[in-house]
């Protein structure tokens, strides 16, 4: 009879993820004694930092929660401020904001797929050796990533920590000429994306065939594949207005994490590309659905590793939907606005919640302002926090299935599981809990 295995796996700071997280596994005589996903990132206290700050500074400050999804944080922040003060934005600004969000989703997903996930599929430690072994593929990924960054730059005035997005509108907008040039490049990018999809399909066997049923939560909207706006939807309990987010997120503290954890109808839930795919599949663009078919990906998929493929599907959707948005802007005729535009805002007291689907899932910002427009309370619930519990439960379910592999293989598989969630740990340790009464 085979000996029962005894080993420890300690990954102190999982690599190729954003921020600092550790995996601890201890197995004695075939019994799992410890299987933990721990967060050691230094906490940053954003919700305390914004107290006392003006309404027109909050999006600038909270953008700094995350370098990778700074556009998403800015948009959630603006929506919360706008909801609190009853500020509305026009149809043109709405479309431009949607383009900004598409640009960021593309940038972030491509960074994750190309720089962080691809090395696992190609049996190397980073993209660096791939640059010489697979120069064509690496250059294709880089070219797509560049396009997404230039798109962010064109809409937001910067690739990271946007400048043009303001409560009530934009300080500056792109010209129609810039937008049509962008549209040409987006159309040309479809072939590049096809090549990336083929590359992933050829290596898809590297993802374990692992299923653990869980609850998925994402925004949903009957009119479109929800990213910028919608209601909260759960695969377990149905839909609810964004203002009721605290009933979904239920954050709690665990001693082995500087980030907060969350749970809803079950012990854990999942947010992100796979959650959105599972809930809003019908509203994906035609080419995005075709890309999903390439991988036999269908809702509802309970394999967390397929979050990677859902991201790829979403990149295709973002390209197609961006082309559509630019067409609509062209048809309506792009209205110009004065230089250094500062939207008129009537400052008033109030509370507002903003929810946006950012690359890693549903993001909530919730602010309370006094009559002078000074922030007196703030709460931000970050996608990765909502995923931490699900990651750990997946680890606990996956480990017994792979326990006979070598500790090195186990380590890699668990790391790949964590990476599949594309965790953004800097975000998730932005930290805080304030309950509104």
């Amino acid at each position: 009879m085979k000996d029962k295995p005894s080993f420890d796996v300690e990954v102190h700071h999982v690599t190729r993820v954003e921020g600092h997280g550790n995996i601890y596994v201890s197995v004695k005589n075939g019994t799992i004694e410890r299987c933990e996903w721990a967060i050691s990132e230094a906490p940053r206290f954003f919700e305390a930092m914004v107290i006392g700050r003006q309404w027109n500074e909050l999006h600038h400050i909270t953008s700094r929660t995350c370098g990778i999804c700074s556009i998403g944080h800015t948009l959630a922040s603006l929506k919360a401020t706008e909801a609190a003060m009853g500020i509305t934005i026009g149809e043109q600004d709405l479309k431009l904001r949607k383009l900004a969000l598409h640009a960021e989703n593309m940038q972030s997903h491509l960074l994750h797929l190309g720089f962080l996930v691809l090395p696992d599929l190609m049996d190397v430690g980073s993209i660096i050796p791939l640059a010489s072994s697979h120069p064509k593929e690496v250059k294709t990924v880089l070219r797509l990533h560049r396009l997404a960054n230039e798109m962010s730059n064109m809409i937001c005035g910067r690739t990271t920590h946007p400048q043009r997005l303001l409560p009530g509108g934009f300080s500056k907008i792109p010209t129609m000429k810039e937008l049509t040039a962008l549209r040409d490049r987006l159309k040309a990018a479809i072939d590049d994306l096809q090549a990336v999809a083929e590359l992933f399909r050829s290596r898809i066997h590297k993802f374990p065939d692992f299923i653990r049923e869980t609850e998925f939560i994402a925004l949903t909207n009957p009119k479109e594949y929800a990213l910028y706006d919608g209601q909260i939807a759960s695969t377990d309990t149905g839909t609810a207005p964004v203002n009721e987010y605290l009933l979904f997120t239920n954050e709690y503290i665990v001693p082995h994490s500087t980030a907060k954890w969350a749970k809803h109808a079950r012990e854990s839930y999942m947010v992100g590309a796979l959650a959105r795919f599972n809930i809003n599949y019908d509203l994906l663009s035609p080419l995005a659905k075709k890309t999903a078919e390439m991988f036999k990906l269908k809702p509802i998929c309970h394999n967390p590793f397929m979050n990677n493929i859902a991201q790829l599907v979403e990149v295709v959707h973002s390209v197609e939907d961006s082309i559509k948005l630019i067409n609509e802007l062209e048809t309506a005729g792009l209205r110009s606005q004065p230089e250094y535009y500062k939207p008129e805002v009537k400052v008033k007291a109030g509370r507002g919640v903003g929810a946006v689907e950012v690359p890693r899932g549903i993001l909530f910002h919730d602010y309370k302002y006094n009559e002078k427009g000074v922030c007196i309370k703030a709460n931000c619930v970050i996608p990765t926090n909502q995923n931490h519990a699900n990651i750990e439960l997946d680890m606990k379910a996956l480990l017994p299935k792979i326990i006979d592999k070598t500790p090195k293989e186990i380590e890699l598989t668990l790391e790949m599981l964590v990476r599949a969630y594309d965790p953004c740990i800097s975000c998730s340790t932005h930290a805080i809990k304030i309950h509104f009464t």
Partner: protein
Amino acid sequence: MKPKVAFFDFAGCEGDQLQIANLEEELLTLLGQVEVVSFREVMKEHSDNYDIAFVEGSCTRLQDEDRLKQIRKNAKIVVAIGSCATIGGINSLKNYQDLDEVRKTVYGDKAYLFDTYAARPIDAIIPVDAYVHGCPIDREEFLSVIKSLLLGKKPDIPNYPVCVECKKNENVCAFERGQFCVGPVTRAGCNSCCVNEGTICWGCRGLVDNPNENSQKEVLIKYGLTVDEAIDKFKLYFGWQERKR
């Protein structure tokens, strides 16, 4: 032999390391000139044998000081990248509040589990040889600093205010538009990128070495603004620098 370089991060958003990934094609060229031996965000391999260490993020707790000191010991050259590392950055906003209260607000009765102290730039802990300022850093400036270091030269970082670049770009002054701007005291080098996009300078590159306080006061008087308003805006990025002054 190619110089060995390593990247590290402390409390920050990793937006500066993202700018390095954002070099894209130029990153491939850079990789021809240096050997990256540690970069947790993009590679699995790690080595403590490196010549140049790039550090992002502020130091915000005692337990992180040892890791910084070890990096200093291992590296010949330490470069701070991004506002959090160069000046303390947006993290230093919390320095204006009672830190015990801050921890309690965030973690309630579990506050004792989560250590924190006033956010500070890394040169508050270890000597730093070069700086790439900004929130986030500018990709071109990063390349220019790394080129200087590889050539054994001191990087050329402006020590005049953002207003100089802003005027050259023919922007309408933010004060003339009725907004408050910290460009007059903020270190240039960003080509006034935020004002060019229709907003204001927020101060992310930190104070110039000798900010001209009298001329800042003149600006305030001219536009009917108060010192309190100025101090309030200074808090966004200058928290640590002001405390030292």
